[in-house]
Each structure stands twice: as structure tokens, then as C-alpha cells.
């Protein structure tokens, strides 16, 4: 019995002072990279702008009362007829580009994130099921995933939108359809690895029912690679939506995303009114790069092989 008392005494010495939750440790490791921390801040700013655009934008570019064609194609820094400064210039219809970009970010980010989340939900459930039950279920699901992934995303989106028509909900459907398979495959791979780990075997040994093991043991441990995929895929969704809008098949002109703005300004490029296309393009670029940098760092931090 004395030996056990010794162990207890020394266990005290050995264990650290406060409960270091996995979250705290993760944050500490993530912020080690200045680049990623900066990118995350940039993303926060963009997200803030996107959410609060109606309140912080200088004008409402879609309020037809305030927009006049007399202000059209003004360069950045020019003044409007009633004394307001157009910081980034105006577009072909006289709308303030800065405000248009803010509203555009709102739509682009909103559609991208929303479609990402829905695709993640669907893909995760499908992938987890495939991994846990294995056998025929797994084979059937994964063949569907393979078929889905073998088509280029743009092609699938184009076909779907041609059938469904324009509208935010139709775009969401197209983006979700294009993305869910990727999530399914990722989480299936992760779940397959985790399923054969010893703590899952222990849970089986303790007779803890299938559902409990799936939701309490497997799912939380499959999240890390999923989080990485979410960030990268969101960036991808945003850029895909911009492409579709640029091609004129995406969102209707009543919901102008950044892609549409770029498309609208394209005609003016040759007459050197670059700002109408370039500034929305820069906004899109910065958003996507910021998200990708964050995703990159997440991938490194959450890599299980690098963890103790």
C-alpha cells in the first residue's frame, strides 16, 4: 500500500497546474504562426464587413433613389454631385464601388459558408455511416462519391443551374451537390483510421452501443481533418460561385456577388476604367487567400502525427 501512496504523491508533482483543454492547446499552437494569425484577423475583418454591410457601407448601392447615372464610371477618390467621396470609384451604373463590394462580400461569403456547412453536414453523416458499417453499405456509398467527384465541379454546377434556373436557393443546391462528396470521403478516411484505434475497441469492450460510439467517440475525433476541409472548401465554394456569376449563370442581378461585379466591369477594362473589375477582384482574392492560409495552418496544427 505504501508504494501506491508514493505514486499518488508523485503524480501530484508530475501533472500540470491547470486543466489544459485541447482548445487552449490548439489556440496556442495556431497562433505560433504570425502569418496565419494575421490571415485569421483579415478574415475576421472581412466577415465583420460582410455581416454588417447594410450598416457600415457608405451608401446602399441598390437603393435606386440614391444612385444616378451621372456618377457613373468615376475614378477612385472622385466626388459625387452631392459631395460624397467615392473611395473606390463607381461602376457603370453610378453605384459606389466600395459599398457594392461590401454587399458583394456579404453575398459571396454567405453563400460560400452556408453551402459549405450544409455540404459538411450531409457529407459527414454519409461518410461516417459508410466507415462504421463497412461492407456493402460502404461500397455503394463510396462508388456514388467516386462518380460524383469524377465530374468537374463547374460542369455539374452548370448543368444543375441550367435545369434549375437562377436564384440563391438554386445556387446553394448546386454548390452543396458539388461539395458534399469531398466531405464524405474525407470523414470516411478519418473514421476508418479512428475506428480501428484502441479507444474505440475499448468502447466496444465496454458494450457501449453503436450510436454512442459513433457520436461520442468517432465523430469528435474525426473533426480535425474535417475542419481543415471546411476552410479550404469554403474558399473553393466562394471562388466557384464567383465563376458562375461571372459567366452570368449564377446569382441573379438582384443579388450581386463579387463575381457579378467583376463581370459587370469587364467591358470597361479596355477603356482603362480598371477599378470597376479590379477592386472586386482584389476583395475576392484577399478573402480566398486569407481563408486558405488559415486552412493551411489548421492542417499543420491538427495533424495527428505531429501531436504528442
Amino acid at each position: 500500500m505504501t508504494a501506491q501512496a508514493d505514486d499518488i504523491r508523485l503524480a501530484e508533482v508530475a501533472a500540470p497546474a491547470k486543466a489544459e483543454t485541447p482548445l487552449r492547446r490548439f489556440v496556442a499552437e495556431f497562433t505560433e504562426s504570425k502569418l496565419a494569425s494575421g490571415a485569421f484577423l483579415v478574415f475576421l475583418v472581412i466577415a465583420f464587413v460582410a455581416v454588417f454591410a447594410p450598416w457600415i457601407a457608405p451608401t446602399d448601392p441598390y437603393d435606386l433613389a440614391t444612385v444616378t447615372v451621372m456618377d457613373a464610371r468615376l475614378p477612385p477618390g472622385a466626388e459625387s454631385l452631392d459631395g460624397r467621396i467615392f473611395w473606390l470609384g463607381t461602376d457603370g451604373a453610378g453605384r459606389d464601388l466600395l459599398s457594392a463590394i461590401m454587399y458583394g462580400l456579404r453575398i459571396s461569403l454567405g453563400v460560400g459558408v452556408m453551402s459549405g456547412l450544409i455540404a459538411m453536414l450531409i457529407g459527414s453523416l454519409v461518410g461516417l455511416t459508410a466507415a462504421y458499417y463497412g461492407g456493402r453499405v460502404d461500397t455503394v456509398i463510396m462508388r456514388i462519391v467516386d462518380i460524383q467527384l469524377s465530374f468537374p465541379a463547374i460542369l455539374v454546377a452548370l448543368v444543375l443551374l441550367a435545369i434549375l434556373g437562377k436564384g440563391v436557393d438554386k445556387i446553394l443546391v448546386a454548390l452543396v451537390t458539388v461539395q458534399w462528396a469531398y466531405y464524405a470521403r474525407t470523414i470516411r478516411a478519418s473514421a476508418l483510421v479512428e475506428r480501428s484505434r484502441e479507444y474505440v475497441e475499448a468502447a466496444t469492450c465496454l458494450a457501449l452501443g453503436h450510436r454512442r460510439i459513433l457520436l461520442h467517440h468517432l465523430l469528435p475525433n474525426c473533426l480535425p481533418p474535417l475542419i481543415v476541409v471546411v476552410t479550404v472548401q469554403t474558399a473553393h465554394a466562394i471562388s466557384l460561385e464567383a465563376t458562375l456569376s461571372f459567366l452570368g449563370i449564377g446569382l441573379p442581378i438582384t443579388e450581386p456577388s463579387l463575381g457579378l461585379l467583376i463581370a459587370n466591369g469587364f467591358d470597361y477594362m479596355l477603356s482603362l476604367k480598371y477599378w470597376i473589375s479590379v477592386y472586386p477582384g482584389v476583395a475576392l482574392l484577399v478573402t480566398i487567400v486569407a481563408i486558405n492560409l488559415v486552412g493551411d495552418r489548421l492542417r499543420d496544427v491538427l495533424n495527428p502525427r505531429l501531436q504528442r
Partner: protein
Amino acid sequence: MSQAEQTGAGVPAIETDAVSKRFVNTLDLAARIARRLGADVVEEVVHAVDRVSIRVERGEVVGLVGESGCGKSTLGRMVAGILKPSDGVIRYKGRDLAALEGREARQAALAVQMIFQDPFASLNPRMRVADIVGEAPLYHGIVGRAELSDYLDEVLRRVGLDPAFKRRYPHQFSGGQRQRIGIARALAVKPEFLVCDEAIAALDVSIQAQVLNLFMDLRQDLDLTYLFISHDLSVVEHISDRVVIMYLGRIVEAAATEALFAEPNHPYTQALLAGVPRLDLRRRVYEPVKGEIPSPLAPPPGCHFHPRCPHAMARCRQEVPALREITPGCWSACHLNDG
């Protein structure tokens, strides 16, 4: 099929009767089509465990020894209920595990628990220690929510951990402490039988001694029975009452510990014991066993050990030796014993 019986009456705690486990790499649709078209694609079968019968009496410690591919871990997992046998019957206190249902099946499942090898992978990294140890007793109603905290404290103290740390996460503990958490998790469901699958192999030497002593204390205090799986013969010799040696899915020898180590009968056991490094043998000249351990995918015909056996005869290549009782309590599967 013969059974490794022990001199001792009563219903054994665990008994496996000609248990086998085959892992089949089933051909998927593409491979089946390829085979139809004439490709040389075969279904791969690994006979991880081949008609093994062992008996563990109540209160015993049976050591299960073997090298890679011998099937000891697979056998351990079947006994613990993690894998289902392909053939044969596993009996807990005389009752066929596969035939039990509902409450009885659950009780039998909880009565046999497993301690795993890897202290890092055997604990869910996202759960606090209190949840890891307390999840199962709460789930199965062994203890109510009100008494859970005190119950956990008691279990943790029993394995030598300070209950003050039960809100911590596994990564904040050392390997030896994590192994203790794993033992606490098993003890929390009040088991009668523990399968230790290389439970100390991944620990430092000085911590191994601590955990081994803990196992022996628990055996005495809680009247536990053990199936102790290990490749480390010195540890097995120290802790076991009886030892079973496996090679490539089959039992080659089983005997009481002292008898086996004093006079090993099977050539494989002899080679194994001769090759174990010992503290008291200095500058020894090793006489290695020739050859590699065969792959379980393509085991040699007849006696699995014959390619490496210094006494192999023609018969060994053709006929599988039967496991027979050579002297009371000592079983061996070798043609050399047939006179």
C-alpha cells in the same frame, strides 16, 4: 479436439473450444469481374487463430506468449468480445457467449475487460479522465449519477492515481499514468476477468515494475483472473501460473510455468527460451534460430514450425501434429513426442 485442462475442479472462468478466426480479404466487384475474365486474383485468407482451445480457471493467471503473427492478440480480442470467432465456441462460466442475449449478454461482456498495449491510443483524447472512466458505469447503471464522483475517486485511488486530476485530459499524463487510467476504466465496470494485451510493453522498465505490481495487488484484492498476453518471457515467467505458447495461429505448448521454463518440450519453445536475453548471462554467444517467421498468409504445410526446426522430419511437412498431454498438465504439439 483436446483441451488444455488443469488439475482443478470447477467451471473455468473462460474457455475457448476449437476457436478459429479467419480474416478474409473479400474481392470487391472490380476484382470479381477481373477474375471472371481470367485474371489471377485470389481471395486472401489469413488463419490468424486455428482451432485453439484454452481454459483459464478462476483466479489463475495464464500467460499467452508468441511472436508476430502467432494470433495471441486476435485470441485475446475474441475472449474480450471485440472480435467474433469464425468457428468454435467461447464459454464464460460454462455458458456460450454467442448464445446469450439481452441482460445476460451485457453482464458477460462487462465481466471480461481488456487492457490495451498503447497508452496513447487506448484513451479517447477528447474526453476528460472522469468521463473516460465514468462513462460505462453510468451508461450501464452500475452506479447512479449522484454517487458517480465518489465511485470514480475510489477507482482512481485503487490504481494509484490522485482523484484531484480527474478533470484533466489524457495528453497531460505520462505513459504509465495513462495505462493506469485504462486499468481504472476496466475496473469501473466491476469485471471478473482481465485480458492484458501487451499491457506493459510500451512502458519504461521502472514503470513496468509498478504496473506489474499493481496487477498482482488487484488480483489479490479483487479476486481477478488474467489472460496475460506478452512477448516478454521474463515478465510472463514472473507473473503467470501457466503458460501457453502460440506459433502462427496454433498452440504449440502449454504447461505450468515452472515446468515449461525448466523443461520445454517443443523445439520452438526451446528456441524461444534459449534466445531470451538474461541479466545474468554476460557476453553470451547467441545461437540464433534460422529462418524468418513465415507470413500468416502462406503458412508452411503440416507443422508450421518445420522450416526452422532443427529436428524436422518428413512427417512434419505433411501432418499437423496434435496437441497432446505429454505429462500431467503439460501439453505439446510435436511429432517428436510420438516416440
